[in-house]
């Protein structure tokens, strides 16, 4: 039997296949965790990916009560399953200055991967995708390159290389 950690990363599509130019915020401006979540969800709602902003915000804020999704080293992966989406969605946002997000290391967050999934995830992609984001952003070089990428294409190129 495979160890638990190895099984997390099986059966997964590449992270970049979930990224879209309209789900990219090159410079997120927010005053703290709740404001950052609200602004990212508003961006999602504008792209028509979610049906009700308030419900998604509530779900993500509830998830933060379970434990912060700010996992340290400037990375946060706010995530949750919600009734009001039909597909697995990833929004990527950056903050050069950094945003206080109650991260595990107490440092501000610069890179955000917001992940939303429906409750029924037939291909079982949700947990493997969360694991994949953690794996890919473990490298300090990748984190630095993601922060410096001038546009969406450059950012996806960094992730594509990191995923190989």
């Amino acid at each position: 039997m495979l160890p638990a950690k190895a099984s997390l990363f099986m059966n997964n599509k590449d992270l970049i296949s979930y990224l879209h130019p309209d789900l990219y915020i090159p410079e997120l401006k927010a005053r703290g965790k709740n404001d950052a979540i609200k602004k990212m969800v508003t961006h999602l709602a504008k792209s028509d990916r979610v049906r009700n902003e308030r419900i998604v915000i509530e779900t993500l804020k509830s998830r933060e009560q379970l434990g912060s999704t700010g996992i340290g080293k400037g990375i946060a992966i706010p995530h949750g399953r919600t009734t009001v989406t039909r597909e697995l969605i990833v929004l990527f946002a950056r903050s050069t200055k950094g945003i206080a997000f109650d991260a595990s290391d107490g440092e501000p967050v610069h890179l955000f991967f917001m992940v939303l999934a429906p409750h029924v995830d037939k291909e079982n992609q949700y947990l493997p995708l969360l694991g994949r984001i953690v794996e890919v952003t473990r490298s300090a070089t990748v984190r630095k390159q993601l922060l410096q990428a001038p546009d969406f294409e450059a950012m996806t190129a960094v992730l594509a290389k990191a995923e190989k």
Partner: protein
Amino acid sequence: MNPQIETLIMLQDLDLMIREVSDQKTASKMSAIGFEVDKIDNLQRAREELARKVDKELLGSYDRLMKRYDRAIAPLRDSVCLGCFLKQPTRYSGSQDAVRTCGHCKRFLYFI
């Protein structure tokens, strides 16, 4: 969207989150990824707070439906309840402000 339905959907998302992280296998996977999932008590408190915003009668129906099915609220598309896949009366179309339930499975409906 009807405000009570909106709150019920928030409650459903929260209940399903509690169910998911209460599952030892899933909680272990989340921890292995690197997420904290130990403050379930906080979620229970948030659940109680949210439940207080729902009309008592609706909350009673919701709780019964959650015990009977996986989800108490289903989308309604083209007059079909996507919980039981049966067609609803035509009058349901267009009346999005009222609390509606499926005529067959009794799940709460929200319009998509």
